[in-house]
């Protein structure tokens, strides 16, 4: 598990995945920016919620043993296919989730990623409320 070395230079240098030594192709940068587009599936899981105490366990279950902290409130699997996100605004419910929109709902994000030339495309974004 690499989440405890997320901010170190070593972690960033180790973040080029699936490439040969010395390849600095930004497409393979695990710290690349992720983006939504019009094709991103936006889903809300109303059938379940997670407890604030279970967030770390849910993150580990989703990302597996090998993940890294990308930024404040954002963790990514080392293979670059999954991301768990709970930014302060998500945790505090500063914005809503669902269609129709239910305002001010604390939640976390389970996201599926696909690499692009300059980062990652979020293909699916699942919102799960925090109870």
């Amino acid at each position: 598990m690499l989440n405890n070395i997320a901010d170190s230079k070593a972690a960033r240098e180790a973040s080029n995945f699936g490439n040969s030594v010395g390849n600095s192709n930004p497409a393979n940068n695990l710290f690349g920016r992720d983006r939504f587009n019009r094709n991103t599936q936006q889903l809300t899981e109303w059938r379940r919620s997670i407890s604030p105490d279970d967030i770390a366990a849910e993150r580990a279950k989703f990302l597996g043993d090998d993940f890294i902290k990308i930024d404040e409130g954002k963790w990514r699997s080392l293979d670059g296919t999954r991301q768990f996100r709970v930014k302060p605004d998500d945790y505090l419910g500063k914005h809503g989730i669902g269609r129709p929109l239910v305002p001010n709902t604390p939640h976390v994000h389970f996201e599926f990623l696909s690499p692009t030339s300059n980062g990652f495309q979020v293909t699916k974004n699942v919102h799960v409320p925090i109870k």
Partner: protein
Amino acid sequence: MIRFLKDGKYSIKMEFDLNGAKELLKLFELAYKNLSASVLLDFESSIEKGKYQKELYVVKNDLDNRIYRKSTTLILELDNPSIEYGVHKLSECINGEDFYPAEFCEVSFRETNVTIYGFFIK
């Protein structure tokens, strides 16, 4: 009305009504064509404590997304995918839908990644 507010260490709120959505959409469409224009911001717009911004420029920048101010001007630089997504979401708002999900994009602001959240005020 278009209002940008630094809402936390890692977040900026972009609030707008229907007229604001139409103005923002024009800006985004121009930026997509590598053109730029500005719109007036709500008088409360501020991304730095005590500094207020009066107008907004949206500019294409394929290297990175970032936001910064020059005096009373707010400059939002976005790459192509982010501009396209903005056009899509703003068009949805003009058609009566919410800006959902609220996360619009991540941008660099003073060497920190902050998320811009969109709020369509109906």
